[in-house]
């Protein structure tokens, strides 16, 4: 009985820490987006609230909480309220299986770094969750009683399911190499004692490009931001949302960006591994210092990717819808199939 209590307590503490880190990272992403877009457009960006405008995201959230929550006439009240909750819940739940460092050892108690990083179906869980994410946006579009929203929701769901296939095929190629669904196993496999030369990006360059493109499409960010194309659909599925419900979509979008960066880092960029054996600089396996160093490395990689996402958004123009569909079905899907067959051939060739 005592043991269950301790494990539940540990799970609770980890859940609170991961959730706060996720919210913090969403806030940092919002700040980065506003500041970097300002620099790209030769503006100054937020600089009034706090030093360098660092408190701007918090003020944004306070503003959203204070705003009136409008449910338009004729909207389906239940689904209209449920849709942003689904979006945010999915964005949060993906982190349940994402590990952030090697497990650390305190006394003779081993603590996993992450909610449940040893889940042996980690990748399947992530795929399932991103599929559920479509519901949030499709329901938001359908229940708003607005033509723009409906079109935005439809576009978004068609886009997400089209690109999900190529994403799944790219992930399959990774699993062929690693032989495991667990994200910890996939990361540990990319570790080598000198340099980062066993990262999957070098083994799977085509798969990496496919996954990167689909990650942009799955998070509905430019150049794939057709669901919320401001100029034609006045922000699409969230046209009729205001106040905290809009804030939840907003939060989910930025959390998704961090999540996608984390998954790309884990699958292709070596996750939290150091470029050399930790013992070379005197760090023992299982100490909390090593855990911290690994976490920092992981966070740096995630933020470099987030900045890449932002950079692309503010420099590349948006696709037209037929171009988007052509890219998804006629370029990425055949390429992903080819990549899968080539990878399976290569794996067999090396192993037998």
């Amino acid at each position: 009985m005592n043991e269950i209590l301790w494990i539940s307590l540990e799970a609770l503490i980890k859940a609170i820490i991961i959730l706060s880190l996720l919210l913090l990272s969403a806030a940092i992403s919002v700040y980065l987006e506003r500041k970097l877009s300002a620099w790209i457009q030769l503006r100054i960006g937020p600089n009034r609230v706090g030093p360098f405008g660092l408190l701007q995201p918090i003020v944004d959230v306070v503003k959203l909480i204070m705003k009136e929550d409008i449910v338009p006439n004729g909207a389906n009240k239940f689904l209209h309220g449920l849709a942003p909750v689904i979006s945010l819940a999915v964005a949060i739940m993906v982190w349940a299986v994402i590990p952030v460092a090697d497990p650390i050892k305190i006394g003779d108690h081993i603590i996993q770094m992450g909610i449940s990083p040893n889940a042996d179906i980690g990748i399947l869980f992530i795929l399932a969750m991103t599929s559920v994410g479509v519901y949030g946006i499709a329901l938001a579009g359908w229940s708003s009683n607005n033509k723009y929203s409906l079109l935005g929701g439809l576009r978004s769901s068609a886009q997400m399911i089209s690109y999900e296939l190529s994403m799944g095929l790219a992930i399959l190629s990774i699993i062929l190499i690693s032989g495991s669904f667990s994200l910890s196993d996939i990361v540990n496999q990319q570790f080598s004692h000198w340099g980062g030369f066993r990262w999957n990006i070098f083994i799977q360059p085509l798969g990496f490009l496919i996954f990167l493109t689909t990650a942009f499409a799955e998070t509905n960010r430019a150049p794939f931001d057709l669901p919320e194309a401001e100029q034609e659909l006045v922000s699409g599925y969230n046209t009729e949302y205001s106040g905290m419900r809009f804030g939840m979509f907003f939060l989910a979008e930025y959390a998704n960006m961090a999540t996608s960066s984390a998954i790309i880092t884990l699958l292709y960029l070596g996750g939290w591994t150091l470029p050399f054996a930790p013992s070379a600089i005197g760090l023992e396996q299982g100490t909390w210092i090593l855990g911290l160093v690994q976490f920092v490395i992981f966070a740096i990689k995630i933020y470099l990717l987030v900045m890449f996402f932002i950079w692309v958004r503010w420099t590349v123009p948006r696709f037209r819808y037929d171009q988007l569909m052509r890219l998804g079905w006629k370029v990425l899907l055949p390429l992903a199939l080819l990549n899968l067959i080539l990878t399976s051939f290569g794996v067999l060739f090396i192993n037998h």
Partner: protein
Amino acid sequence: MYLTTFGIVLVFFIVGALFVAVGLFTAALVRPKNPTPEKLRTYESGEIPMGSPWIQFNNRFYIIGLAYIIFDVELVLLFPWSVVYKTLGWYSFIAMVIFLMILIIGLVYDWAKGYLEWDKPNPVIPQLNELIIHRKKVNKEN
């Protein structure tokens, strides 16, 4: 007795749900509420909305949905294969290539039939002249 892997995930889910609930509850406490008819009207570029918002939309969304389901089922079948792939050898490679070929033929069929085109390839618009000529012919024969 121990908490299983997904028991911990459940704890995380509960904490996340609590966070969302607290956020919405706080917002409900502090936000104003004074709806007016103009505020509640759905946005349609400043015009008064016309007709039902559940408009007829392009049926290509439906075809894309069908194609997605077929390929996604393929993926579901491929996932267990990929985990044990290293231990199975050439037999599983050939079996998988045959399986993939069936689906690639399906993709090629869709492609050739133009189901993946978002713009309709060549819309055939009936010409007025042809209709008149046809009518005259019919009249003559009578």
